[in-house]
């Protein structure tokens, strides 16, 4: 059942993607609105499908690749909708939505049937650890694209070139501010994610820290963002430096989330 609702939401996301891409070409406010509303519809239905799955399965559905990608996309869509209420970042939708759609299509290629939960995952820590980690990652996912956009716009201004579509880009200050917001929201989330993960590891594997590849990479990620946040607050790291660090941080998240699972392996092999 939940899988059908999931497909409906995917259809809305695809529809939204189409309109955001169209917006890039025609630059009409109405086109963007259609994209925005269908994104909102897609997100709501996606949320319902996730809740459905939770009820059907009886556990938080973030236990395999399909479920994680789906939840990750849900968090990204949610955070993007949240940001859109405060900032003029339509152009960002033109990048985020296609990636979101690809992510969901990719998710649907993994087995999606509900299976009994492996004993090692039966824990109260499952929802806390996964939700915090994924919401944090989703926030940094968005900041990754914000940073790329920042670097492009910044380079254009510095080199005194007129960029195509440059009238549609948010200002440097707005982009930097969004990055700062992402930092200050995302960092607590991944911190809680890592701490709860460690506590859970203490119960499940008998030791709080095992230097498992997943643990190591998430620590690296955490350190990157910690340095960034610290330097922002003390010596005023802004603009390009922030953007570069955000990109490095997100690449490290990618390795933690996908690289370790798909290529390296380790204790944390469910997702």
């Amino acid at each position: 059942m939940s899988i059908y609702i999931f497909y409906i939401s995917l259809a809305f996301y695809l529809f939204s993607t189409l309109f955001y891409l169209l917006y890039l070409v025609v630059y009409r406010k109405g086109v963007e609105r259609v994209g925005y509303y269908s994104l909102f519809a897609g997100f709501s239905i996606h949320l319902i499908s996730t809740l459905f799955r939770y009820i059907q399965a009886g556990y938080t559905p973030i236990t395999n690749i399909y479920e994680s990608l789906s939840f990750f996309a849900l968090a990204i869509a949610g955070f993007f909708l949240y940001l859109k209420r405060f900032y003029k970042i339509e152009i960002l939708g033109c990048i985020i939505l296609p990636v979101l759609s690809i992510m969901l299509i990719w998710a649907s290629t993994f087995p999606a049937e509900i299976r009994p939960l492996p004993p090692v995952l039966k824990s109260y820590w499952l929802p806390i650890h996964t939700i915090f980690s994924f919401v944090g990652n989703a926030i940094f996912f968005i900041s990754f694209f914000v940073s790329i956009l920042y670097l492009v716009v910044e380079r254009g201004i510095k080199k005194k070139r007129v960029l195509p579509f440059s009238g549609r880009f948010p200002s440097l200050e707005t982009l930097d501010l969004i990055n700062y917001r992402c930092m200050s929201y995302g960092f607590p989330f991944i911190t809680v994610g890592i701490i709860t993960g460690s506590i859970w590891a203490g119960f499940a594997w008998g030791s709080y820290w095992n230097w498992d590849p997943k643990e190591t990479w998430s620590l690296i990620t955490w350190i990157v963002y910690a340095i960034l946040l610290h330097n922002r607050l003390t010596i005023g790291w802004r603009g390009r430096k922030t953007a570069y660090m955000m990109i490095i941080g997100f690449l490290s998240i990618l390795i933690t989330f996908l690289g370790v699972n798909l290529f390296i392996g380790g204790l944390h092999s469910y997702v």
Partner: protein
Amino acid sequence: MSIVVFGLNHNTAPVEIREKLYISEPTIPELLHALKGHGIHEAVVLSTCNRTEIYFSSEEQEKTFPIIREILEQSFEIKPEWLQEHTYTFHGEDAYRHLFLVASGLDSMVVGEPQILGQVKDAYRMATLYNSTGFFLDRVFHKTFNVAKRIRTETKIGYNPVSISSMAIELSKKIFGELHQKRILVIGAGEMCEIALKHFKKEGLSEIFITNRTFRHAQKLAEDITGIPCPFIDIPDLLTKVDMVLSSTGSEKPIIDKELVQSMMKKRKNRPLFFMDIAVPRDIDPEVNKIGNVYLYDIDDLKELSQQHLSDRLKESEKAYAIVEEEAVKFTRWLEQLDTNPLITHIFEMVEEIRNSELKKTVQKLKKIDEDTLKSMEILTKTIVNKIIHPHVSLIKKNGSPEVLDMMKKIFNFEGEDEEDMDNRDEG
């Protein structure tokens, strides 16, 4: 019935003559009144610093022209030969094509500038207020607004700014977004700074600091523009406070170098700083642009961007011309349709006459009546009349069979012109 435009613009007349013939808003009613007194009931007066034009509709142009000239010569103390030499006249399709071009900014000094459309709208509003537009000019002007809007949305003619000041503002916005909480430091108190500052001020900056080697001049400009005058030696300190720096001094050597900015950026905790150096020779060391979060544009950079935008506009203006041409032809066809059918013209004229006289009676009876109410009544009556005659007119247009025409002629009490009259009409 035909529309005529008579006027001059920046291409045909030098500024001395344009300023003589500038018709300020308070004097427009007088002029409209004078024209009415001479039998020109439909007229719109458009006067800006780059053009003065009178649009009117008239049956007998030979008679009207001398009248308009006379009125202009009398009211503005100008020599008759000026009007001969520096003015242009367009009739019919050429006239409204010209109006389309004017309203969409294609005839402006800076191609595509947006203010002119507002000015045309104001001119038309003024004319409606004094009841000097009728069926014909109403149609022409409404069509014009449509055309101008179409050009705005379908081409990018007004998309990018072209003046140095607006260029600087555009760039500031790319860096800071909205400017209303931002602070600017102005170094130098010359004319260049003043012009640019006036533009910046419109963006609602929170604080404007002005400094100059001769403090007195800074004080004066600060008074004019409500800024804060500061001594010249405070520049380093001010660099930690402001977001933008606009510089235009006569200094031979740079006043701000890389080391200074670098040390100030540390104090600013790297908050972005935007330098606009519009002085020649330059006031700010070009190396400054290499510092992170610092952006420096000198006068040549600004000019080059503005040149790019201007050439973009010219490219777009070709599209705009095509739209104007298309709309002018369409409008002519529409008018011809009206014109070839004297019955329709008759219907419009008849109901307009009824409407006018009935409205007058009511207004006289009511005595106390404010402008807004009068306007609403105008609109109300016009709408009612138009809605009632619309089905008749469209029936005539769609189904011109003798039976229908006959019936309509009877309903609207139309005598009909015979062949001879029709021929005369065409010649006139």
